[in-house]
């Protein structure tokens, strides 16, 4: 992250076990996060859980902010984590002056969508039957 990008938001430290937000939470203020250091788990509220692990340089919290909807997932700090966060306006400003930030954000959303798509296909697919020998 460059000073140019950082000037539009603020830094945050979170202890292990901190929920940054939970599914259904309203979105307001500094709602878009960038991981500087540490490890965050995104949790989808599914009957069969689907954890998505986010490492440094990941951006999250953007989808609900852009769509102006309640949180679709939870975000949980697995380790001591240093984050940077923007509000919508700050992120728009930062991403309009930084092609790296724009690229990383698009790439992150693309990868996330790919995970969801693959998981959906996998869960639709019936498990192959296994039979012991001699039956």
């Amino acid at each position: 992250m460059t000073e140019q990008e950082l000037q539009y938001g603020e830094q945050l430290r979170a202890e292990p076990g901190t929920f940054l937000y939970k599914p259904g939470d309203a979105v307001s203020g500094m709602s878009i996060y960038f991981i500087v250091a540490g490890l965050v788990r995104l949790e989808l509220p599914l009957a069969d859980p689907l954890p998505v692990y986010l490492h440094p340089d990941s951006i999250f919290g953007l989808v609900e902010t852009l769509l102006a909807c309640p949180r679709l997932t939870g975000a949980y700090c697995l380790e001591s984590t240093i984050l940077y966060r923007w509000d919508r306006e700050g992120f728009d400003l930062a991403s309009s002056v930084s092609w790296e930030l724009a690229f990383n954000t698009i790439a992150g959303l693309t990868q996330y969508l790919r995970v969801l798509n693959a998981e959906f296909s996998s869960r639709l697919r019936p498990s192959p039957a296994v039979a012991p020998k001699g039956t």
Partner: protein
Amino acid sequence: MSGRDYTEIMKIAFQAEGAINDEVRRKFGHTYQDKTLLIREGDIGQQIFWILEGEVYITRREGNKYKVLNTVGKGELIGEMSFFDKSVRSATVISKGTVEALVFSRENFQDIFAASPQWTKRLLASLSSRIQLMIGKLQSLR
């Protein structure tokens, strides 16, 4: 997300801007002669092709032959899935006659951004909508 969905997203992102001007065309324009291979199935190339003139075959290899799955032409984007997420090419693309295309790589994303920074916002919004839809689909499974 199917390839078609992604193509629609990218189309919205690019075409809404009318971003292509002479400078972009000079810098990124390429001409391919008939039967030139643009993309090879199984590769991990990270270029995106925007067809300006002509058509290309989207094919899949079956033994020693290529089965044509589709033909796409002017205004279409191809290779977009690998561009951002480094996925393996799922088809082989071959020119049908002479083809003119803009070719962007990950390295010159900066130039695309400079040509039209606004398309990024549209692309982010479109991807966000698709993510919301997929989460809804996953939640509907029992």
